[in-house]
């Protein structure tokens, strides 16, 4: 009796990795999923912070995919290790701060380590040649295989027929003829395949699965690094806070984060011991975090911005509460900034 072969599939929560895993499961291979959490994943429930997004399903799509496929899913925290990928990408960045090729190499390498530790036989990804301009091109496929150390243990079921046969194909663990030859940016073959398998509720992320592909998020990250004199180290709270609020930097040494709605305000409440916080005392208004080392004059300016985003924006005077990290509160009176008084270049 032949040995039951086992594959680990990189599962992003999107359709391609789902179909890749399904293709191999259909051939009788035992497949388990692996999903890496870098801190920048859109797949996290960042949307859930925002009360306005309550209508959106809050499911984690990688878990949903695993459940649809009836396979185990291992979610791995790679926040610390990922820093080096983001800060020093050998292959550079994409359109924004997205180090897509280095990221793919990193993740396949982590999957290879997992494979060795767990006695699995090969790795599956949902990559398709030509699907993405930076990381999924014909030229980058061998780079990912080689630099990740996975070499020919890396099988891309959706475009395998366009690539040299890998070990699982040569050894007959999978039938190459039942693999696919997808290429290019068209999603039609994947959608047809999804329909064939009865998958009709799969995720269709509009901007990819990573905040680093987002122009606004990338700007905030670059601003953070600049404000720290080029020190690119960060912690999880740094990257989480870049996902919420309106970010306004009047001066290099301090930044203001204004909650845009109730859900963000509630989330930001958790940072009251790490930041000076402000809110309007005489009117309703958002929670504001003040980051950096503001002077008394800076705090006065921040209070005027805080008042600008509250219900008293048109009042002559607004009471603004300022609470330091130790919890001491004082109230000052300010005139809210007018609509045109906050320079556009302050907005990050």
């Amino acid at each position: 009796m032949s040995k039951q072969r086992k594959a680990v599939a990189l599962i992003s929560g999107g359709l391609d990795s789902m179909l890749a895993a399904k293709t191999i499961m259909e051939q009788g291979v035992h497949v388990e999923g692996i999903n890496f959490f870098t801190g920048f994943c859109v797949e996290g429930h960042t949307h859930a912070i925002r009360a306005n997004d309550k209508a959106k399903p809050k499911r984690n799509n990688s878990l949903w995919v695993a459940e649809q496929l009836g396979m185990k899913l291992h979610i791995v925290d790679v926040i610390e290790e990922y820093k080096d990928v983001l800060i020093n990408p050998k292959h550079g960045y994409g359109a924004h701060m997205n180090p897509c090729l280095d990221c793919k190499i990193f993740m396949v390498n982590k999957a290879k380590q997992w494979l060795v530790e767990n006695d699995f036989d090969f790795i599956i990804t949902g990559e398709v040649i030509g699907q993405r301009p930076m990381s999924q091109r014909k030229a980058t496929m061998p780079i990912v295989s080689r630099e990740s150390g996975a070499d020919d243990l890396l099988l891309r079921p959706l475009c395998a027929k366009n690539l040299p046969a890998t070990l699982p194909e040569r050894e007959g663990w999978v039938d190459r003829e039942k693999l696919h030859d997808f290429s290019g940016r068209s999603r039609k073959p994947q959608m047809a395949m999804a329909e064939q398998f009865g998958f009709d509720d799969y995720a269709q992320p509009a901007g990819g699965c990573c905040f680093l592909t987002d122009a606004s998020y990338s700007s905030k990250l670059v601003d953070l690094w600049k404000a720290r004199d080029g020190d690119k180290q960060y912690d999880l709270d740094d990257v989480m806070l870049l996902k919420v609020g309106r970010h306004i930097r009047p001066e290099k040494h301090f930044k203001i984060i204004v909650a845009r709605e109730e859900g963000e305000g509630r989330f930001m409440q958790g940072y009251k011991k790490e930041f000076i916080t402000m809110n309007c005392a005489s009117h309703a208004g958002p929670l504001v975090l003040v980051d950096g080392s503001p002077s008394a004059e800076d705090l006065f300016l921040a209070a005027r911005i805080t008042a600008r985003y509250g219900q008293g924006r048109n009042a002559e005077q607004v009471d603004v509460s300022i609470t330091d990290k130790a919890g001491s509160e004082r109230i000052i009176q300010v005139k809210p900034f007018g609509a045109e008084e906050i320079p556009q270049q302050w907005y990050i």
Partner: protein
Amino acid sequence: MNRETLNARRLLCPLPVIRTQDKVKQLKAGDQLEVICTDPGVMQDIPAWCRINGHKVLETISGDHEYIIILEVGE
């Protein structure tokens, strides 16, 4: 039967799931784990993770901006 508590407040998914996954690895079949979270997404994600991995959700409690899931570790 051992019962433990995991504080996953202020963490956004999937971190509460990852912390649960890591904690469960340290427990034995039949042990119970109470996970306390603030991200409402856990009400969907932790039960999904349990179903996938053979653990049983005993109770879910939605409080005032706090969400508690009590699970029993499977075989």
